[in-house]
């Protein structure tokens, strides 16, 4: 028997990995639907200026609480009706997509970066570094997330930026824990020892050798956090602690609409539906990602 080795180029390996990923991802029909809705959402947010029929903050004084076009009294120029000060609902919803995506991206970016660094340090060095970092994470996790975010916003002052920072701080421990667990699993593997023997520095070992092998669970957690961030920021907006009026953030829109719930169903229904559809799409996508990226959970 002669052993033959086939040399495959890096790009070929990458192509094969993407192909395998897509194979598993597309097996999950819900995930594909979620991805499609998410792409639509991104496009809506990106091209809001061209898609929205009206300026989201312009108040049409002659059109207060106009119902959707299919209802009696509805007007064709306001497809989904107007709110209490005569702003076009559809345009506000379209612009609202920008807020949600922006919030999701910023929160996940901050929480992921912070969580990865802390988790790497804790898992890699162990000992007291690990104890201190993980105890601090435990303390953060002991508080219900929305409550802690609320209190942080009370300290920082209400507003979108502070709401995002608060939510990111609250989500950070999840990433730190995941990274730490993954690092501890990988640290003792032979390829890490080999790299260490070859003279790799701690920084190189942590970020270049170990981290890429811990990414799968982090990506799945990132999608879950993305949808939770959209939900929590909407909740903060609803409680008056997030984005401030006249921003067309969906939660803030709901807060403004509360007093009209029994008179004008559309001002309440549509922003909530927008939140639900976005969060659902991202969660569906997350399920598919987990199927595709986590071999342990595959096919279960």
């Amino acid at each position, binding site marked *: 028997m002669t052993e033959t080795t086939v040399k495959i180029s890096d790009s070929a390996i990458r192509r094969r990995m993407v192909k395998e990923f897509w194979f598993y991802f597309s097996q999950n029909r819900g995930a594909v639907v979620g991805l499609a809705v998410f792409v639509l959402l991104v496009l809506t947010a990106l091209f809001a200026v061209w898609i929205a029929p009206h300026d989201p903050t312009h108040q049409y004084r002659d059109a207060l609480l106009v119902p959707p076009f299919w209802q009696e009294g509805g007007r064709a120029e306001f497809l989904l009706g107007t709110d209490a000060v005569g702003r076009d609902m559809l345009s506000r919803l379209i612009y609202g997509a920008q807020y949600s995506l922006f919030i999701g991206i910023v929160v996940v970016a901050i929480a992921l970066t912070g969580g990865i660094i802390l988790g790497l340090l804790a898992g890699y060095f162990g000992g007291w570094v690990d104890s201190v970092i993980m105890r601090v994470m435990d303390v953060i996790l002991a508080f219900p997330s929305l409550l802690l975010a*609320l209190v942080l916003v009370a*300290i920082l002052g209400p507003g979108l930026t502070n709401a995002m920072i608060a939510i990111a701080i609250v989500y950070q421990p999840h990433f730190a824990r995941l990274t730490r667990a993954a690092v501890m699993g990988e640290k003792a593997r032979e390829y890490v020892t080999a790299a260490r023997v070859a003279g790799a520095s701690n920084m190189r070992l942590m970020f270049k050798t170990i981290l890429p092998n811990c990414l799968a669970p982090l990506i799945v957690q990132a999608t879950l956090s993305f949808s939770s961030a959209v939900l929590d920021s909407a909740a903060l907006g609803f409680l008056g602690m997030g984005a401030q009026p006249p921003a067309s953030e969906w939660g803030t829109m709901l807060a403004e609409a509360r007093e009209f719930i029994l008179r004008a169903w559309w001002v309440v229904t549509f922003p909530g539906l927008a939140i639900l559809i976005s969060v659902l799409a991202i969660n569906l996508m997350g399920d598919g990602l987990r199927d595709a990226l986590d071999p342990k959970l595959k096919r279960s």
Partner: protein
Amino acid sequence: MLRFILSKLLYLIPTMLGITLVAFGFIRMLPGDPVLLMAGERGVSPERYAEISAQLGYDKPLWQQYFTYLGDLLQGDLGNSIVTKKPVLAEFLALFPATVELAVVAIIIATLIGVPVGVVAAIKRGSWFDQISMTGALIGFSMPIFWWGLLLIIFFSGILQWTPVSGRISLMYFFPPVTGFMLIDSLISGQKGAFSSALSHLILPSIVLATIPLAVIARQTRSAMLEVMGEDYVRTAKAKGLSARRVIGVHALRNAMIPVITTIGLQIGVLMAGAILTETIFSWPGIGKWMIDSISRRDYPVVQSGLLLIAGIVMIVNLLVDLTYGLINPRIRHK
């Protein structure tokens, strides 16, 4: 078992101290002068300022203030509300049963529906029931519950006029609180119609609060059942010729319940966060609404102690869940 409990308790001490540090730091991290914050919106004269400052101990070094704070906590002194001037602990204890009542009913609804749905979905994997219930669970999991609550109000209170919009009981009824739980107190009072009034006030908020836990429990039960159904002992039980009911009920379900019980216990944190939103929407006089009101009224001593108490409760419940887990699963205990 005792060692297991002790080790868990020891593990909690640093976290507990961390929580007190957060609560202690909270007031000191607020923008502005803490004494002026405590004095309220009207402002104070310099003499009064010095007086309050000394009274609150702000003239001492920080570490000394922290130890005084810890000492007060240990004696059950959680400070007074700026707005009502009453002790925070008394206010908390008066409102806490309302939240517990809501949360208990919610977790009962979530468990009674979630577990059977998860079990059936796992047994009939791939069926229309499985697909519909799991889609429903994912929708529930993605639900902005503050919006869901408003929708239910529009439909059941607005259109059908079946349920009241807010509060715990109709103003027609009045009786002294015995247990603090409106359902029980209304029964004890013996007033006609009081119980059904309390129940009709409770039903919508508890459904709203149950939504996310229900979805999580159904999903978790389904995946735990699927995992257990693939185990050797279940195959053996089937091979022995046991009835499907016995295989599922005795062999599979019991083992699948271990992670599910943990999941149910871990919903306490979710419920406390959910209570903030649910109580705000339904004007339910509990801890969640109290916290929101205190934050907007800038009643910071209340926020500080509320934070501490809520985190403490969540931790104790999590500890109990851990202990139950050790009790039903010997493998954990002996690790």
